[in-house]
């Protein structure tokens, strides 16, 4: 693997980490809001 290719994959790989956390946050938030909308937040 060339140095350039290695840099490319490392940048992409490290950029994936915050992406995973953000996707996780949005996913959990969506699920939680949906659950709340069934109960206490029915009329919001």
């Amino acid at each position, binding site marked *: *693997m060339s140095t350039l290719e*290695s840099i490319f*994959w*490392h940048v*992409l*790989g*490290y950029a*994936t*980490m915050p992406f*995973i956390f953000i996707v*996780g946050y949005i*996913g*959990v*938030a*969506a*699920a*939680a*809001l949906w*659950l*709340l*909308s069934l*109960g*206490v*937040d029915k009329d*919001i």
Partner: protein
Amino acid sequence: MTFWSRLSRPSKASAGVLLGLGFVGGILFWGAFNTGMEATNTEAFCSSCHAPIVAEIRETIHYSNRSGVRAICSDCHVPHAWTDKLVRKVQASKELVAFALGTINTPEKFRARRGHLAHREWQRMKNNDSQECRNCHNFDFMDFSEQGRRSITQHSTALASGDKTCVDCHKGVAHRLPNMSGVEGWQ
């Protein structure tokens, strides 16, 4: 109401319930994510595309040996450290593209491309000082009194001094070798 406006408005639920939802949701998400990471580390997963190689490993010491310890694909090809592992997984998106293009989907194509792929793997292991081998084979605990003479000669010199790393000398420890013409030290 839209997702964002809901997210920015207070809920009627108590702080305890909200924090609990986040806590449980976080655990479930992280569990699912790591289950996915593990599932893509199994030999069954690799064999869905690398069947010829899975067949070859059965004839080697890393499949069956007197100690009954097995090395599977990911033991040698996927780093253990979480960050390195993720980088390697992301890099494997290239393998998905290559799979779609069919770069190694026939025995002939695989034979032609094998040398190139093996060189990439040797280079990767040279760069990380054969970290994956060392996860199981630790130089510090090698008992020279138990090794053969040829092994001691090489291990106590080039390996001990750091001049050479495992894959410089040990190639084809789990697969048949590719065409070795032009590889340093092989005729």
